[in-house]
């Protein structure tokens, strides 16, 4: 008896709730002018999408989404704002050109989505058949895939992270030395 099982109204109710939350908070991110408020809206958008993942039976993905984006990246963004901005309401005012570019990209993506959905509907992907959920998937299958079939990309990414860490340590150290010389 799973939450995401098709034909189960609670799942549908939650789906519409999360979808609405994701949409509204994404609009908040785009329309708000205050950076910290944008970050909070982003938090709600990410959490709603995590909820959607959960309804689809991918609680691991939902947790990753929360740990990496909401718990990591987002906090670093807010942290950066708090460290750098001198006033409370750090304003974000995009130029008209930037808005036009963003609108253009958004329109192209929306068109792509609509075309994709129409194509999927045409091919009969949206039948009445319930969504087959492999809820009892073992997490170890994910781990085996990561360290087996996809070992090379995994290792490449880890090398990239190592480079980033060394770079960060170097930057932090270099600036402290420079300050020492000036002082």
């Amino acid at each position: 008896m799973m939450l995401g099982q098709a034909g189960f109204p609670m799942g549908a109710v939650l789906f519409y709730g999360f979808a609405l939350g994701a949409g509204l908070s994404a609009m908040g991110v785009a329309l708000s002018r205050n950076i910290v408020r944008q970050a909070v809206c982003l938090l709600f958008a990410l959490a709603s999408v995590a909820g959607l993942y959960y309804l689809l039976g991918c609680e691991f993905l939902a947790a990753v989404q929360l740990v990496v984006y909401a718990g990591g990246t987002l906090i670093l963004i807010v942290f950066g704002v708090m460290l750098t901005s001198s006033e409370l309401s750090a304003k974000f005012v995009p130029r008209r050109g930037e808005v036009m570019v963003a609108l253009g990209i958004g329109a192209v993506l929306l068109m792509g989505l609509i075309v994709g959905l129409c194509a999927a509907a045409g091919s009969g992907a949206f039948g009445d058949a319930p969504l087959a959920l492999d809820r009892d998937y073992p997490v170890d299958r994910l781990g085996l895939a990561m360290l087996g079939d996809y070992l090379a990309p995994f290792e490449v990414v880890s090398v990239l992270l190592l480079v980033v860490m060394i770079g960060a340590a170097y930057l932090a150290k270099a600036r402290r030395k420079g300050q020492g010389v000036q002082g």
Partner: protein
Amino acid sequence: MLSMAEAGTFFEQLFFGWGSERPGAVVSVIYGMIVVVVFFMPFVSVLGMICIWGERKVAGHMQNRPGPNRVGPFGLLQSLADGAKCVMKEDLVPELGDRALFRLAPYVAFAPVFVALVAIPFGPELTFERHLNSGLFLILAMLSVEVMGVIIAGWSSHNKWSTFGAMREACQMVSYEIPLGLSLLVGVMAAGTLNVVDMGLEQGGGLHTWGIFRSPFVFLAFFVYFVASLAANKRAPFDLAESDSELVAGYLTEYSGMRWAFFFFAEYTAMFVVGGIQAALFLDPFGLIGYYHNQLSADPQGHWVGMVVLNVMAATIFIGKAGAVILVQMWLRWTLPRPRIDQVLYVCVKVLLPMGCVLLLGEALWQLFVPWRGGIPWKDYNPLSWGDLMKGGTAVGLGVQLALMMVGVGMVVAVVVWVGRSALDAKSVKKRRAEPEAIVV
């Protein structure tokens, strides 16, 4: 007839009904709300109430004073009185701060911890979702989102102390998440699953099958996790986010009334969640119940009443063990002085993080070479059978388990003796103070 074990967990059935026909959308939403209001809300509020009372009692006795003892028996209703006071207090919002975010922050801090309760295993079937295959990871994710509430609170207060507190919290939480995750990973590697109920069930069998006694590496990871969980929960001695001697009250400075209380509900629920993980992963959450549960669910003639009884007993044991962890957290709060923020980060990056990495590597190698012995001796296997012991290092595994068990029991006994002695000491001091000896010149 094992309807409970087959059809799903207790809460799932409560939500979705026992029958074959599904309730309608409105009905199921109302069901959901009722379950939350009847089970989780009272659980969280009673937990917060008892924890605050317990903390003040612990503080009182450690400082040689009675603590709250006027409202109700043993002062138990003190938290209720304080709660009523909090409700009636004026809800102050700083004029120049970000008023909307200021109002929102307590809920952002509270909601994730509340959600984390979903994955807490109160019993083999008394959990919200039995098949949550990455329950432990989900709890960690929720705990890492909680910090956002504190940051928003500090930022929107328009107050230097609040902002400093929030920045410290962000710093501390982001860095302590790593040793926290690494030490949990050591335990998870030993358990072989991220499902909190499964990892609890397989520990049943005796004292030596507890998760913490699996290997020396898990044993040490237990302590790394405990320290990291204190810091991630901003519990003293790592409560730099609200260090009252320097930052007034840190991120809480501008809060009053119920919004302030919500942060405390979040903190005490997070303490329970963190203690619950510790109990589930390391401390055999269900005791021997886990073992009997495995037998009963394998038995086709088992009755569901047995399941219910086992679940209630398991919940009692689990809450007791999580409560013991919370008690130790309280002791430490009133024992240790607060370090500076750079010392806190030093401990994280240069002590706990390398330790976590070494433990992870060690546990991986241990898993390769030394088998683990679960189950009850003389019932599931003969511990003295020579051929069995010589098979692939079983003797080493069992010996290490027993040795670690002795160490653990010794530590607990030492602490109990120590606390008992100091309690006796305190009594004699009181007596001497009441009837001082005559001064002989």
